[in-house]
C-alpha cells in the first residue's frame, strides 16, 4: 500500500571545496606549513647523502664541498631549512601527547608534562651532538 507521492524532490546543495581551502583559516594554513616541513626534512637528508658521498671520495672532494657550502647561497638555504625543521620539531613535540597516554600508578600524566619532557630531551640530545663534535 505504498503511496509515495512525490510533489517535489529537492536536491541538496553541495559546496565544492576550493583547491585553496587551506588559505581560508589560520589553523589550516599552519597545518599546511607543518606538512610542508617534510620537504625540508627530506632536503636535509639529501644534503647528508651528498656529504657522506664527499667524505667517502676523499679529503679533496670534501674540502671542495666545504667551500661551496660556505657561500651565501648555501647559508641562506640552510637558514630556511633550519626555520622549517625547527617548526617541524616544535609541532611534532607539541602533538606527542595526543597519541600517548602515559600513566604513573593510576594517574594520567597531563599532556603538558609529556610535551615538556620531549622538549627537555630535545635540548639534551642536541647538546650531546654539539659535545661530540666539539671534542
Amino acid at each position: 500500500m505504498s503511496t509515495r507521492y512525490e510533489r517535489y524532490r529537492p536536491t541538496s546543495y553541495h559546496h565544492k571545496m576550493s583547491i585553496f581551502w587551506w588559505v581560508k583559516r589560520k589553523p589550516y594554513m599552519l597545518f599546511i606549513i607543518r606538512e610542508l616541513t617534510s620537504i625540508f626534512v627530506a632536503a636535509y637528508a639529501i644534503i647528508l647523502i651528498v656529504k657522506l658521498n664527499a667524505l667517502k671520495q676523499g679529503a679533496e672532494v670534501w674540502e671542495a664541498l666545504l667551500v661551496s657550502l660556505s657561500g651565501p647561497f648555501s647559508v641562506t638555504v640552510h637558514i630556511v631549512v633550519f626555520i622549517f625543521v625547527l617548526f617541524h620539531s616544535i609541532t611534532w613535540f607539541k602533538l606527542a601527547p595526543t597519541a600517548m597516554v602515559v600513566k604513573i600508578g593510576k594517574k594520567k600524566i597531563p599532556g603538558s608534562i609529556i610535551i615538556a619532557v620531549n622538549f627537555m630531551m630535545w635540548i639534551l640530545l642536541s647538546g650531546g651532538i654539539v659535545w661530540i663534535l666539539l671534542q
Partner: protein
Amino acid sequence: METTINLQVLRYIPEKDPDPFYQEYEVPLREEWVILDALNYIKDQIDGTLSYRWSCRMGVCGSCGMMVNEKPILTCETFLEKYMPGPIRIAPLNYFGVIRDLVVETDGFMEKVKRVKPWIIRDKEKAPLEGEYLQTPEELSEYKQYSMCINCMLCYSACPVVGLEPQFIGPAAIALAQRYNYDNRDEGQNQRNDVLLTDDGIFECTLVGECSEVCPKKVDPAGAIQRYKVQGATEWWTSVLLPFGKK
C-alpha cells in the same frame, strides 16, 4: 534606540533558487542572547521562512551546529556579543549537503556512526539477574571522555579531510569506536578494527587537529584517532612478526 547587529544568513530554498545566497537581517544585540536567540528572533519577528534545527538550548542535544564566521560552533551556547560589532556570517555546517537554509544532510554521518558498531560486544552476555558488570572509577575514566560526544558534527565540518574524502569515517565515529574499545565491558575491538583499519578509516586522518579544537564537549577525537593509529600499527606489526599468534 537599541543597538543592533547585522546577521548575514545563508539561504537556500531549492524550489526557488538553485543557488544559495546570503540574506541580511538586523537583530537587537542583547547581552544574554546567544546566536540561536537571534535566529529565533528572525524566525518569529522578521522572516518566518528561515529554517534551521534546534531543540535543547543547553548544548546537549547537538542539533544547532552551524558555521559562524567560517568556524563550526553550537549556536545555542555562543553569545552574540562575542562577535561585536558584527556583521556575523552564518552558514550551514561545512562538507554536508544542504537541504534547506541552515539544515544539512545527516544520513551519511549516521551511517558512519553505525558502521563502527557502537554497542557493547561480548562473547557471552550476562543475564540481568546476575547483576551489573563491575567497573571501577578508573576503568570508567578510561573511556569517559569519548562517551561525551553529542553527535553535533562540528568536528566533521572542521576537518578538511572530511571535505576532501567523503568516505573518511571521520573524527566523531572513530572517537565513538574508541569509547567502546576502552570500555572494560566490551570485547569487540577486533570487529571495529575491521572497519577502521581500512582505507576509509583512521589513516586518512592527517592530524589537522581542528576536530578537537572545535569540539564543544572536549571529546578530543584527534587524540582518539592518534591512539588508534598506535594500536593499529601495533596490531599490524604483531600480525606480520607473529603470523601464527593471531587468532
